[in-house]
């Protein structure tokens, strides 16, 4: 599992940098390195490309895990390296951007788009299998998530647009409910398809407002499971 990211175009980075001339670049040694979007190579390539514009790259670093807090000594070192820059470009998912922004008083800008939390299904191809809805239904649906894999997040079987096992939105996209049907059939649990699943409690998902979770039960917000 990793944060699936893609690079933003240079023009967009220049626009977000605005008047800031001196730029520091942060990469991430975890997901973006494995994805080839924000590792050592990509940081040096962005340094080069920015150098060809009127920006000046003051330095760069690839943090081992950009979304984790830095140990005290490393933090001090990081701050002194960044010192003098007018903005920071972070080549990581939004979590890394947030963690770096917490340390600095200058603009910390994303160089990547965070697409989804995904899995490498085949070499170089990543798929989303979980929308982090807060109330897992995989037990009812043969281990395939209808919220994530069905374009309409249906709960009671495929819509009328499922043809030849493909979704109506794109002949390359498998119908999530065809996948569920095939899996339940293989498991000998097709009777599950007959059950009418009632409306869902979306308050456990993003619809319930910004989510937090505490290991301390007393600190947990109401409704979280």
């Amino acid at each position, binding site marked *: 599992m990793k944060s699936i990211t893609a690079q933003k175009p240079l023009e967009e980075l220049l626009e977000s940098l605005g008047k800031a001339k001196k730029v520091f670049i942060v990469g991430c040694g975890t997901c973006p390195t494995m994805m080839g979007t924000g590792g050592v190579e990509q940081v040096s390539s962005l340094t080069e490309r920015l150098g060809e514009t009127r920006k000046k790259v003051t330095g760069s670093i690839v943090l081992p895990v950009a979304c984790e807090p830095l140990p005290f000594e490393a933090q001090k070192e990081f701050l002194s390296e960044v010192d003098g820059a007018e903005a920071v470009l972070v080549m990581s998912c939004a979590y890394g951007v947030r963690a770096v922004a917490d340390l600095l008083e200058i603009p910390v800008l994303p160089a990547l788009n965070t697409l989804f939390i995904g899995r490498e299904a085949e070499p170089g191809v990543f798929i989303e299998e979980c929308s982090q809805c807060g109330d897992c239904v995989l037990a009812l649906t043969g281990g395939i998530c209808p919220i994530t894999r069905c*374009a*309409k*997040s*249906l*709960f*009671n*079987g*495929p*819509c*009328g*647009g*499922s*043809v*030849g*096992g493909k979704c*109506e*939105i*794109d002949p390359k996209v498998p*119908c999530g409910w*065809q996948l569920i*049907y*095939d899996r339940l059939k293989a498991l000998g649990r097709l009777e599950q*398809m*007959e059950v*009418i*699943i*009632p*409306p*869902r409690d*979306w308050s456990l998902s993003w619809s319930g407002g910004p989510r937090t979770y505490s290991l301390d039960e007393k600190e947990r917000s109401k409704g979280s499971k």
Partner: protein
Amino acid sequence: MKAGTNLEKVLNAGYFAVTAEIGPPKGGSARVIESKGEMLRHTADAFNVTDNQTAVVRLSSLAACGILRRIGLDPVMQMLCRDRNRIMLQGDICGAVALGIGNLLCLTGDHVKFGNHPQSKVVFDIDSIQLISAVRTMRDEGKFISGEEVAGPIPIFIGAVENPYADPFEFRTARLSKKVRAGADFIQTQAVYDVPKFTQWMAEVCESGLDKQTHVLAGIIPVKAVGMARYMRDYVSGVEVPDWLVKRLEDAKDVREEGIKIILEIIEEVKLIPGVHGIHIQAVGWEEVVPEIVERAGLLPRPIV
């Protein structure tokens, strides 16, 4: 009687029902709805109004159905789960009742990707089966999804759709059964062109006794031109247009007449299939052909019940 609409009465009296679709304009003209309604007045028992079909913005189904009601027609309000959450859906159902609309067709809705605002955020808070069940609970138990009480009656004759041609084909009857269990009083199907496949599906429907619990109306889409037939065959999701149909239109001298003949043959065959209680004619953008089709199919005059 659940709602006492004309459609419900016609079906309950055992007549072969005819419903016809009225496409609303891409603007605020009540006149367009009224004139289409006047044109079709004596040719069908009830009139569906689509709800931002294929995700293209149009005059709302609720308002259009209110206009049809005002000129004395029995509307079938189509309602999608794509654009409204459960608050808005239930609010609009109450609004429909207030306007005297008594038939409601519950659908999932085409994905926004097909429409003229593909960047929209989709809603899909509940799905069509959950919507059917919600309407039934509002009507029969006087309760909203939340369990709170509805103030006053919700007399709605509940409709649903089914596509006998979609996949997995083996699941299609089971899916219909889910809709009927959830509360569907009538079903309007996707367009029927491949009659043998539809007949096979209807046999399964009757075998599981669903024809005794709901009224199935076979979907009919008249084909105006060769290009339209090819387009539906190749691009419209969920519609299965056989090659022979395209071929017949291609070879015809008078394409319009050949298209009507094909549709009349399909209606003739469909009338004989056990368990089919009517037809639903969706003459997309070609409503003026409906009176001719209904007349030549021998389905006039419509019953007065």
